[in-house]
């Protein structure tokens, strides 16, 4: 009698109590199982289903924009998000800051031996959700495992590809004297949320990370000026950037340097939540240097600034948008701020890490 050949039994991953071990990075059955049962099933798309080490994709017309971003964060889960959705938003936003529509992502994972599979599942599910919401597909990836003590749970690197309309050049080198500086909302939420969860601080703040994908907001901002930008490169949006690490101050200084301009911003125009202001106050930090993960700064031709600002305020992620200043001609590329108090000061690069003051 010819009995049918039974497929070898594979015990399903124990997503409740299981942990990452070295075999999950070894290239054998365990790794295959992890990829299929955890990653491919969550990200669920035709490219991953093919099981290749790469993805062959078709891009809509336009110029290709590419960006990559590595994500390391403690804690991995925080109010308002986790490393999973953060790793999608971070790269989607980098692509979007070219005015592009993000289309595909690649994801690389470095997992630490002993990391609970349940936590990994939570992270991967969060990535999948964020990618779905952003309408991008995670089409290829990689997994490596490092010994215990040689990683911090999980590191995620994502690379994104998007497409921008031919002729649209939005970049940090394009700020011009007279441009209006627009900010999409409250600053410092992400950074202070993370700080508030750190063990040594643990101040109970009613705060959550602002992590979000910004390409929808970017599209909404482009809508009212798209035609004008097609006809005249000096019109519309010149620069877009998301002020992540180093905060708003760092982003403004980067752009001032790239474009060879100065800036004058108004302290009173910059939206800061009272909780963030209070937490910064008692730690001796400056909200201008605190990280954001769902905000953008736009440099817009003066004549188009009002229309773009109205468009921002009409989008849920730009509800609290404000015009915070103007680009000036300044040979030394200083970013200056008119303080609420009535004086002026330089808003300089962040030095090292922002450290709390003593007294």
């Amino acid at each position, binding site marked *: 009698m010819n009995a049918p050949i039974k497929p070898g039994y594979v015990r399903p991953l124990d997503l409740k109590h299981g942990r990452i071990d070295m075999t999950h990075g070894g290239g054998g059955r365990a790794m295959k199982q992890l990829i299929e049962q955890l990653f491919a099933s969550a990200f669920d798309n035709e490219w991953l289903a093919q099981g290749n080490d790469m993805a062959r994709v078709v891009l809509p017309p336009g110029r290709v924009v590419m960006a990559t971003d590595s994500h390391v964060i403690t804690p991995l889960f925080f109010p308002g998000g986790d490393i999973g959705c953060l790793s999608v938003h971070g790269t989607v936003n980098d692509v979007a800051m070219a005015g592009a529509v993000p289309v595909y992502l690649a994801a690389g994972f470095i997992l630490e031996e002993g990391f609970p599979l349940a936590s990994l599942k939570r992270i991967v599910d969060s990535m999948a959700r964020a990618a779905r919401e952003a309408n991008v597909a995670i089409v290829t990836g990689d997994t490596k495992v490092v010994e215990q003590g040689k990683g911090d749970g999980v590191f995620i690197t994502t690379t994104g590809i998007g497409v921008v309309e031919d002729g649209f050049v939005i970049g940090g080198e394009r700020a011009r004297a007279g441009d209006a500086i627009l900010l999409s909302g409250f600053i410092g939420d992400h950074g202070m949320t993370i700080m508030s969860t750190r063990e040594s*601080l643990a101040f109970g703040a009613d705060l959550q990370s602002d992590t979000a994908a910004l390409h929808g907001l970017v599209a909404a901002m482009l809508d009212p000026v798209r035609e004008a930008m097609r006809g005249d490169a000096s019109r519309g949006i010149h620069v877009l950037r998301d002020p992540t690490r180093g905060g708003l101050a760092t982003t403004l200084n980067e752009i001032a340097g790239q474009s060879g301009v100065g800036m004058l911003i108004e302290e009173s125009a910059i939206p800061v939540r009272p909780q963030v202001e209070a937490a910064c106050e008692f730690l001796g930090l400056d909200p201008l240097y605190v990280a954001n993960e769902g905000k953008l700064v736009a440099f817009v031709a003066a004549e188009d600034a009002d229309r773009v600002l109205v468009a921002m305020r009409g989008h849920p992620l730009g509800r609290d948008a404000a015009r915070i200043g103007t680009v000036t001609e300044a040979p030394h590329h200083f970013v200056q701020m008119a303080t609420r108090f009535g004086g002026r*000061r330089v808003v300089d690069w962040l030095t090292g890490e922002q450290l709390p003051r003593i007294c």
Partner: protein
Amino acid sequence: MKYIDEFRDGELARGIAAQIAREIRPDRRYQFMEFCGGHTHAISRYGITDLLPPQIKLIHGPGCPVCVLPIGRVDLAIRLALEHKVWLATYGDCLRVPASDGLSLLKAKARGAKVAMVYSAADALDLARRQPEAQVVFFAIGFETTTPPTALVIRKAAAEGITNFSVVCNHVLTPSAITSILESPEVRQLGTVPLDGFIGPAHVSTVIGSRPYEHFAQEYAKPVVIAGFEPLDVMQAILMLVRQVNDGRAEVENEFTRAVTRDGNLKAQALVSEVFELRRSFEWRGLGEVPYSALQIRGEYAAFDAEKKFALETRKVLDNKACECGAILRGVKHPRDCRIFGTVCTPENPIGSCMVSSEGACAAHYTYGRFREIAVQAA
């Protein structure tokens, strides 16, 4: 923010500024030293000098705990971490202070030293509790403000019988530093630093009270106005100093009445004198050896004195020759007078201690004030 915004009100500031402008005598200059780094920081951050008439000059004083820490003491901390392999816990500002051989605590950490940034002395003691097998040393710095918390953890550690915790005490005393400035030849004999009065410390005075400054007002005929760290406090204190100078008075006045009394915090003072005693002499960066200007741990608590526990000796290290921190800390020079300011010495790569902490005169000028010296074209 309630109780904060009120002290940062631009409208009120313009009112005080107008009053100062009305009351100054146009024929004279007013030179006031703000002793504290907290004031230096506020002055720079809020652009207070923009609101003052040109006759008023503010001189940055030595009241920045990180700035006055001599290289030898930082070297000692680094040796503790690298050679004695202890967990060295200290405040964030301390980590970047440049020491010998191009090292700092942050760079020592990159070489494998165990360095922990803590937000309070209590966090350092917690670290010791959590790691009973490791030796934890708290590198304690600061003026009278941070001294009581250090005293408290030493007493707590003693009460709990914790044996893996000790402290390197670098706590220094404000009145001794003011005396040293007033006794310096530049002020007393040469007159190259004409000082018309002091903006007195805020947080320090909450602990020691206003009484210790009375001596300066009487003996040296210098007005002192104790002021809070908010920008309106500073403006108000300047107005009060101008009035004293105009009236020929030299008194201790208290602008910071919401927090400072004449006697200060007696409980904190008692705690400090229970755990600490005067050091015969202590080296200050910029001021040199200043007699009876710092504290050391009393014999009863010797088990918690890291200098005794690890038989440490502070080696004297000279400052970089080109560095003007010493003169800047005494008010003799301005950061812009230093040859290496903003070129070799920057906040990323500090040579002198004044460039390290955001309270330091050089860092504050670099970060907030530099643009004043460069003509900026308006758009």
